């Protein structure tokens, strides 16, 4: 039977690199966005058995049991679902190298996973092998004199902190989430509230050991295999698997934290930018409840820095202390009684959240110890869920205000409750490291990022609703020219639109040259 006529209305010609075809099914489905394939097609499974057999001959046994594969069906986002053909827990660099050699030989996709904290399905395997790097979680060497640590890349930041603390040491910068892995973080950047001073977590790496997509093992740093070093850091897993890392560390100090409250988002953002520009605090960031309770938090590692802040910068901040803000907010809602639901929400949020940020057993003489533990527990308790939707915009200083204010309006349109999280990111590495990353090319000195986090609160939202929200945030980025942190996986349709064909095709050519079979973390970026 000839079906040619049945499909003649659709152009199913494979797209050429750099050409984005219109969606053949519904060209206006995502208004303003020429759709391209964003959900990866399931790999056809060819050569899987030969791949598994070859690894078995080298005493590397892929776990094909259903119960093991089911552990990996989704990521923290809970929006993308796939299933690997088999799972392998990485135990050594050599093992990873053998895997990549066999994967190239048989064309089997390898999806690498650490903490699995992606939100767009970047670490979800749609067939092929799921390589769980957390089997490599050892701390290899702590150098107290030079303040460095060498660790395996599958280790959680929390486990690293646990090991370092025994020696009175701490890592410099890591995501505010205890279950992110070192390797995964270095691969995408990693933002902390000290990023305005230190840059992203990847910038704390002095050296990394990688396995290339063809199975070569390389030691990389700024002085050795520098091309690989700067391509793998913030490379979204395209150019190699990080198996070990040497990171800068510091002596552990508890920190003093202060909160300043604003009723106006723009004012708080202006103050944040001022603090970042003038290096006024060791840690600074904005965390909001809607756009009515905007919290600018600052923190200090030393009493000297704290004193300097209060001497020089506090008087320039326009935020209030807790009591002053409560009085002003109370007045605001008294004059607007029709907004009583919003007032109740803010009150309840304050009642439940604030104590969690100051638990007595994580305080010592008024200072916070284990800040990541405190924040991470609060993050999961108050923002966590089986689905997490966190679109973001990463901008230059000049575009920061417009991006966040427009994004804020989008949040209001889609959700009753939401949070914005804004932070600065100092640019400290060479430009090639940040190509095709969350650091926008027009940012100078410090880039700024904002996450737009709806509170799903157990409600059921359709995928279309959530996807439309993300698209509308990302459209702002296309419109004013920003970057994103989470542009891979399901959002990769935006990559060419924000970075342009020239840059993307350059990276695609690099990817093809180092990963001829295109098997490592495929479908994440290209």
């Amino acid at each position: 039977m000839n079906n040619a006529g049945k499909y003649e209305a659709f152009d199913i010609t494979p797209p050429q690199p750099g050409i984005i075809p219109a969606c053949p099914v519904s060209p206006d489905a995502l208004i303003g966005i020429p759709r391209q394939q964003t959900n990866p097609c399931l790999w056809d499974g060819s050569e899987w058995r030969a791949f598994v057999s070859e690894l078995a001959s080298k005493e590397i046994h892929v776990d094909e049991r259903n119960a093991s594969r089911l552990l990996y069906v989704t990521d923290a986002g809970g929006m993308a679902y796939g299933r690997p053909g088999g799972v392998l827990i990485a135990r050594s660099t050599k093992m990873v190298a053998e895997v990549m050699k066999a994967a190239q030989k048989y064309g089997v996709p390898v999806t690498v996973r650490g903490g699995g904290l992606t939100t767009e399905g970047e670490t979800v395997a749609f067939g092929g092998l799921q390589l769980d790097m957390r089997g490599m979680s050892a701390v290899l060497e702590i150098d107290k004199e030079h303040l460095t640590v060498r660790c395996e890349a599958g280790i959680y930041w929390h486990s690293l902190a646990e090991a370092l603390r025994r020696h009175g040491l701490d890592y410099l910068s890591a995501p505010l989430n205890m279950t992110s892995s070192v390797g995964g973080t270095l691969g995408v950047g990693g933002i902390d509230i000290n990023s305005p001073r230190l840059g992203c977590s990847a910038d704390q790496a002095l050296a990394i050991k990688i396995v290339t997509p063809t199975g070569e093992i390389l030691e990389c740093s700024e002085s050795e295999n520098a091309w690989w070093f700067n391509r793998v850091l913030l490379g979204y897993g395209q150019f190699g698997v990080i198996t070990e890392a040497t990171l800068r560390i510091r002596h552990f100090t508890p920190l003093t934290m202060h909160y300043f409250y604003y009723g106006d988002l723009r004012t708080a953002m202006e103050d944040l930018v001022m603090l970042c520009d003038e290096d006024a605090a060791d840690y600074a960031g904005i965390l909001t409840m809607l756009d009515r309770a905007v919290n600018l938090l600052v923190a200090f590692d030393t009493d000297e820095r704290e004193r300097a802040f209060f001497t020089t910068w506090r008087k320039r901040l326009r935020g209030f202390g807790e009591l002053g803000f409560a009085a002003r907010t109370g007045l605001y809602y008294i004059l607007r009684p029709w907004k009583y639901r919003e007032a109740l929400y803010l009150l309840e949020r304050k009642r439940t959240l604030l104590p969690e940020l100051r638990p007595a057993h994580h305080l010592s003489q008024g200072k916070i110890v284990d800040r990541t533990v405190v924040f991470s527990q609060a993050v999961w308790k108050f923002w966590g869920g089986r689905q997490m939707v966190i679109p973001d915009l990463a901008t230059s200083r000049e575009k920061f205000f417009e991006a966040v204010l427009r994004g804020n309006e989008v949040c209001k349109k889609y959700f009753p409750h939401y949070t914005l999280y804004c932070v600065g990111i100092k640019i400290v590495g060479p430009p090639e490291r940040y190509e095709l990353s969350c650091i926008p090319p027009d940012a100078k000195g410090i880039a700024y990022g904002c996450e737009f986090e709806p509170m799903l609160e157990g409600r059921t939202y359709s995928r279309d609703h959530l996807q439309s929200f993300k698209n509308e945030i990302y459209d702002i980025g296309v419109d004013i020219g920003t970057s994103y942190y989470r542009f891979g996986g399901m959002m990769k349709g935006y990559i060419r639109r924000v970075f342009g064909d020239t840059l993307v095709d350059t990276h695609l050519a690099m990817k093809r040259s180092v990963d001829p079979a295109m098997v490592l973390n495929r479908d994440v970026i290209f």
Partner: protein
Amino acid sequence: MKKLSRYDHTQPGAIDPAQCNGCGVCMLSCPVWHQHRTKALTYCGRNRAAIGGADEDDLAPSAAACILCGSCEPLCPMGIRTQQSTLALRRNLARRGLLPNPRVARDRKKPERAAASRLIIPGASLRDNGRIISAVLRVLGGEAKLHADDGSDLLLSLEAGGEVSDAQIQEYLAPLEGVPELIVADGLMFNLLYSALPSPKSMLPLGPALLRDPNVRAGIKSTDFYMIETRAYNAHRHAFVELYSRLRRETGCTTNLDLQRVATPTGASCMQHREGLKTIISIEEQVKWLLEGRRPARIVVEHPDDLEAFSRYTKLPVVHLAEVAKP
């Protein structure tokens, strides 16, 4: 001390996937995770597999691997009772012959009513150690008495997923009703009694009970490594965390609390170890991890099983908490 939460071990139901959001925070303090880095063997792994559609049978190796130290429980942002949940899963699996089921005393003697104002339920390890019992009785005073029936057989069955009838539990509990103060040495027994006794009493784990004595607190030195019994502490962390934070501040000792203020176990108290069953937890590895980067002069333990574990794998002096009291 803050009010303890009710801890209902008799509530039916296995893992409740609907509550788990898969964050994996529970793995961070899990000793099985620490030693094996295999998610499938953790509470989180069991839940994720179940959510994904795995059969209960598939979860048997993971359920058998758990040492019920309770490290995962205080970390769950959704408040899932992980220890209870694992026990329930073990019951289901054991019922179907998918877990080894150790012996259960079916013909228990009718227990006598306990006549004491302060009753110590020693558990198997303390019961067998005359030296420590003497020290404990010395600290707790003349009105303290050892309970003849420590319920170890019931506890062992509970831990293994065996059937313990309501009638057996009620029969065990009956003599304890009305006792003004109960001090329970075994953490799992503490959790069971706390949930099962009809009215809350003055009930404490052995460690916190001994720490009420200023002479005991005075005997703890800044060079000590203090080993908290994990099962009761972790199940009631919110109630006890301040007690141990204060102890640390006042004495300068280090403890087995990790950055999340969860108590890390040696694994010596688990059923698998006590019964000589196959276990994937190496006690030696746990002891090594607990002391890594620390240079204590002495180990002080709350649970007699930890005394044995540290004595075997370190050359440091190891004493029970009751033995440190200054005269």
